[in-house]
């Protein structure tokens, strides 16, 4: 699904991504962890070109996203993204938030879009909020709207950029539940998170990043029990 080859990215002098290579297969759930500033979000944002990389190659579903000939908007239609700060559209109702890209990008009729949106709102458990504006919703509810909005495009891949980091503790569960259900349905997911419980339960592979590079990657069992790298051990000791 996603092929990342020898990717470098600089922010001025800072090396944000340092020779990163990674393959993600259909249906796979990848969790990326690491200290802040380690490049995990940058890597995730490079996959749908919210960040442009300075060297290397990224292909998504066969499309080389660095090729100027590639229509990035077409590629992005197939990649759902969920942000730390939700980024729901405050001037639109919950239903219209989810309808917007369906009608504008996918060219679905208003009726068809609303049917899909309603279905998704039931799935994420906030159908009763359809006609509310996001300002009246809790953080957890807004994030579920954001997830539904991304799913409405029927993406082949979902990117989650610390989806629970801006939430009050009591709301983290409701968002993680939605994500766990999504994983069970077989969605290909790349998740940047600090939720180790989620990583253990859902991930097929855990990627540990530090200083812009992938330090270690392994299945959750091996990763948490027998990390091979010193830096991984140090990090796990700090957070567990």
């Amino acid at each position, binding site marked *: 699904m996603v092929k990342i080859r020898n990717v470098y990215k600089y922010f001025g002098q800072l090396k944000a991504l340092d020779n990163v290579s990674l393959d993600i297969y259909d249906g796979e759930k990848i969790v990326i962890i690491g200290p802040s500033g380690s490049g995990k979000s940058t890597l995730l944002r490079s996959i749908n070109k919210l960040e442009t990389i300075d060297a290397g190659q990224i292909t998504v579903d066969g499309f080389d996203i660095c090729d100027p000939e590639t229509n990035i*908007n077409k590629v*992005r*239609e197939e990649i759902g993204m969920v*942000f730390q700060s939700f*980024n729901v*559209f*405050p001037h639109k109702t919950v239903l219209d938030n989810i309808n917007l*890209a369906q009608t504008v*990008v996918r060219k679905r009729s208003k009726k068809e879009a609303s049917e899909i949106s309603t279905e998704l709102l039931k799935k994420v458990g906030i159908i009763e909020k359809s006609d509310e504006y996001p300002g009246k919703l809790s953080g957890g509810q807004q994030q579920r709207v954001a997830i539904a909005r991304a799913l409405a*495009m029927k993406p082949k891949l979902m990117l989650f950029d610390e989806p629970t980091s801006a939430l009050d503790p009591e709301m983290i569960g409701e968002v993680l539940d939605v994500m766990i259900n999504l994983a069970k349905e077989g969605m290909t997911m790349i998740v940047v998170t600090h939720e180790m419980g989620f990583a253990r339960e859902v991930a097929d592979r855990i990627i540990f990043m530090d200083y812009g590079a992938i330090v270690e990657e392994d299945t959750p069992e091996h990763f948490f029990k027998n990390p091979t790298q010193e830096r991984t051990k140090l990090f796990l000791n700090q957070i567990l």
Partner: protein
Amino acid sequence: MGEITGTKETKKPVIAVGDGPAIPSKSDVGLFTAWRISFVSAIAIVAYLAISKPDPYLAILKFVPDGILVTFQVTIEAILLALVIGLFTGLGRISKNRFINGIASIYVEVIRGIPLLVQLFYIYFALGRVVNLPAMVSAVIAMAVCYGAYMGEIFRAGIEAVHSGQMEAARSLGMTSSQAMMHVILPQAFKTILPPIGNEFVALLKDSSLVSILAVSDLLRRGREFAAESFTYFETYTMVALIYLIITLFLSKLVSIMEERISVD
């Protein structure tokens, strides 16, 4: 238009001098009553003068309404055109395309550096030698081109005030940048720029008195015509000033009400 650029703890006092009227806000009790006193007294004085001394005051009141209509016509046509120019200028100013950005920025710098009166003369008299534009058309174009530059800055500020995550979210859903701008960014920016646009409208209405020098029969021009015939300069300009005052006070009140409504939402 003052810009606040305070960083960290070093807060410098900022003196913002706008060319629009001060918006009376509810929290500012002084301004609020000042508005009432000015508005009520202006109307009272006009009424008193017209009743107690119908000649010439009532005659003036009967003579100038044509001019008020023209003043509004110039103002509304100019503001509509300025909004269009301002939108494109604002978009140009945030464009990553260096050429477009350069053109928009130069336009803003040049126009803001030339007095409106000179621009009026330039479009009517200087360009008039090339294309012969009617006075009214020249007046509207000159006002719109001038205010378009200021509008551009308002649009730019309004667009930049929308959180960058909104653009990212829209783009990540596959929208093109213009789709994102139209459906996500501009509707949100519009809320913040509506009050300053209202202020520009009031400022433009006042500046529209400048078009009287192009022989456009606006409120001021009508007053001048009346005064020139009757030699009642003091009386006429008193009435003209009061009428301008009543209109601008009324409009600025509308703007402040609109602003309040928006902030409640």
